């Protein structure tokens, strides 16, 4: 390359120009993200709370109000005030007369594609799970996602037995999945043909969660009565 050609080439930008562009754009983008976050965060929180509330009333149809309780270190339940979120939560549902009708419990476990998150309603009067709703699922569309839509499968949870042994220490009969059409006991979950892994996963998630929560809830029912 000749001297003349070299001289005619535009000079490369200085380091200052590059820093100016990167930092300037970075600051602009940062401000934009913070603004979007501040504007949308209260709406997102409200949407999540409404979705949870809807799910609680879906799994406890006779409830008209709900309160959140947290399991503390002494294995007792304490009413959780305000919007504070924490682990080990259950949602107590009350009817119009402020009578406790049941408890909604969140549970999670591995499905076929990813984690399945659900909420189920526990009725201590019927000693049974009386409804479930899938909150989070990435199961295969058209196959695994039948766990949310298959009416025969959802009928399992209209009254799924979770009665306890006499000493209230564990479930009298663990929840077990069975092949479609072979259900003969009220604690069995009738599977879905074509969505075997997902339906078995639901039974396992419920069994694991009920084994943990149901004895603790039954031993502390007084904590929820009258909302205190």
């Amino acid at each position, binding site marked *: 390359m000749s001297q003349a050609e070299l001289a005619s080439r535009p000079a*490369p*930008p200085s380091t200052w*120009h*590059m820093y*100016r*562009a*990167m930092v*300037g*754009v*970075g600051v602009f*983008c940062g401000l*934009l*993200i913070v603004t*979007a*976050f501040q*504007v*949308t*965060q209260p*709406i*997102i929180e409200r*949407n*999540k709370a409404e*979705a949870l509330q809807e799910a609680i009333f879906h799994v406890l149809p006779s409830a008209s109000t709900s309160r959140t309780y947290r399991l503390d270190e002494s294995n007792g339940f304490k009413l959780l005030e305000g919007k504070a979120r924490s682990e080990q939560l259950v949602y107590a549902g009350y009817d119009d007369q402020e009578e406790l009708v049941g408890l909604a419990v969140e549970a999670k476990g591995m499905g076929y594609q990813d984690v399945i998150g659900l909420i189920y309603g526990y009725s201590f009067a019927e000693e049974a799970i009386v409804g479930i709703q899938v909150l*989070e699922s*990435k199961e*295969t*569309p*058209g*196959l695994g996602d039948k766990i949310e839509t298959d009416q025969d499968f959802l009928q399992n949870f209209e009254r799924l037995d979770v009665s306890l042994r006499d000493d209230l220490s564990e479930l009298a009969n663990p929840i077990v999945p069975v092949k479609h059409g072979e259900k003969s006991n009220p604690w069995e979950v009738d599977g879905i043909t074509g969505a075997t892994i997902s339906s078995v996963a639901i039974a396992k998630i419920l069994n694991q969660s009920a084994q943990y929560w149901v004895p603790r809830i039954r031993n502390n029912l007084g904590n929820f009565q009258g909302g205190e």
Partner: protein
Amino acid sequence: MAISSKSSTDEFIKGLWRDNPVFVQVLGMCPVLAVSNTALNALAMGLATAFVLIMSNIVVSSLRSFIPKQVRIATYILIIATFVTVVDYVIQAVSLDLYKALGAFISLIVVNCLILGRAEAFASKNTVGRSIMDGLGMGIGFAFALFCLGAVREILGAGSLFDVQLFHDSFQDWVVMILPSGGFFTLAAWLLLFNWLKQRKERKAKQDESAALAIRGEVA
């Protein structure tokens, strides 16, 4: 002024049809195949991508003399990622169900080669006005293509459109259409249709040209 207006319209039209990002340029195939299992998911993803494309085109075009060539790609990605984050928050605020359905594919708009491609090939070399028209055309063209795929897949795979049942209960859903393989089948069918239309148009143009030449020859 008239010339500028005509070319702006042309920038808009080309993305919609002639250079459609999906059916002609075959760009951004990851969300096209993954999120087009229902018409609503496809339309939402298409509109989210269109918003990011238009906004990033505006910013890149406005800052084109401010960004040195050496750091342009990093800067463009930063701008695109910012608008994707904004879209992510907005979709969560609008509908949690939609947010769950679109999943990780919202974040993956950042690496959609269509957006970086338009920033690099068009917005960085043109005025803000023309870049907006380009972004609008390409964005709407992308959303239209996604909707075409999503509608066909939902109608055949679930017998519905926008969750409205279209057929009698006796209709047997083609489950394969909402599985990943259905995405490939549907895309292939649409590409076939577009290529056939394109070839037919070219053939017709050629015939018209030959006829015009023949008439001129006879006149001479």
